[in-house]
C-alpha cells in the first residue's frame, strides 16, 4: 500500500472542499497516477459524498470518515458514515428524460468505477469505491 489518506468530519457541503483537497494532495504525492484516473475517481467520490450529504439523516449530523489508498494497481476509497441505511439503487441507469435535473450522481459514479459497493455495517454505511489504474496520461 503506497499511501493512506484520511478525512474525518461531518457530511455537509462545506466539507467537499476538504475532500477535493485530499484527492489533489494524493495526486501531487503520487505523480505516477494518471491525471485521467485521478479526475474520474474524484468525480465518482464526489458523487457518492454528495449522495450522503443530500440524503443522509439527520441532515448535517451525519459523521463520516473517508479513507483513500493509492495502490500500484488501483485507487481505493472507503466512505464510512452513520446516516440511515441506504435503500436506493446503487447500480441504476441514467434518467430516461434528458432534461431531468437530478438522478445522475450514482449512475455517473458507477460508470467510472470498476467497483462500487455498499454494505450496512451495524449502525454505519460503508461505501467502497475502486478504480483500477489505466496508466494513461
Amino acid at each position, binding site marked *: 500500500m503506497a499511501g493512506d489518506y484520511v478525512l474525518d468530519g461531518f457530511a455537509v*457541503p*462545506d466539507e*467537499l472542499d476538504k475532500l*477535493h483537497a485530499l484527492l489533489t494532495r494524493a495526486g501531487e504525492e503520487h505523480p505516477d497516477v494518471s491525471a485521467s484516473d485521478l*479526475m*474520474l475517481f*474524484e*468525480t465518482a467520490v*464526489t*458523487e457518492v459524498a*454528495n449522495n450522503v*450529504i*443530500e440524503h443522509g439523516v439527520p441532515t448535517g449530523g451525519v459523521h463520516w470518515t473517508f479513507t483513500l489508498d493509492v495502490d500500484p494497481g488501483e485507487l481505493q476509497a472507503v466512505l464510512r458514515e452513520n446516516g440511515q441505511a441506504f435503500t436506493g439503487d446503487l447500480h441504476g441507469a*441514467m434518467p430516461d428524460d*434528458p*432534461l*431531468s*435535473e*437530478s438522478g*445522475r*450522481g450514482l*449512475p*455517473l459514479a458507477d*460508470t*467510472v468505477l470498476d467497483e462500487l459497493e455498499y454494505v450496512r455495517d451495524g449502525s454505519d454505511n460503508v461505501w467502497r469505491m475502486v478504480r483500477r489504474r489505466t496508466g494513461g496520461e
Partner: protein
Amino acid sequence: MDIVSTGRGRMAVLSASGRLNMVAAPQLKKAVDEAVAGGHPRIVVDLSAVDFIDSSGLGALIGGLKSARQASGDLRISGAGEQVRTVLGLTNLDRILKPYADIEEASHGW
C-alpha cells in the same frame, strides 16, 4: 464559485469559476433566472474557469436551459475543460448541452 453576469442585448454571458458543485449549483441557477427575468433569455455559461463539475452542476445547467427556453431563449455552454467535457459525455448531456469552444462560437447567430 464566482459568477459574473454580463448582458449584451437579449444575451447574457455568465462567467463561472471554481467548482460547479452542490454548493455552487443554486448560485448558477439563480444567476440564470435573474438574467432571464432581466430580459436576457439567450444565455452563454462560460465554463473556461470551471475546473470541476458534478451532477448538481449539471442539474443547474439543465434547469437553466429549461428556464431560458421557457422565455423563448436558450442556454449554451462554452470553454468546457477536460473534466467537464468528460462528465457531459458520460451522462450523454453533450447532446443537449453542446460544448462550444468559446463565447463567440456559442453566441454565433445571436
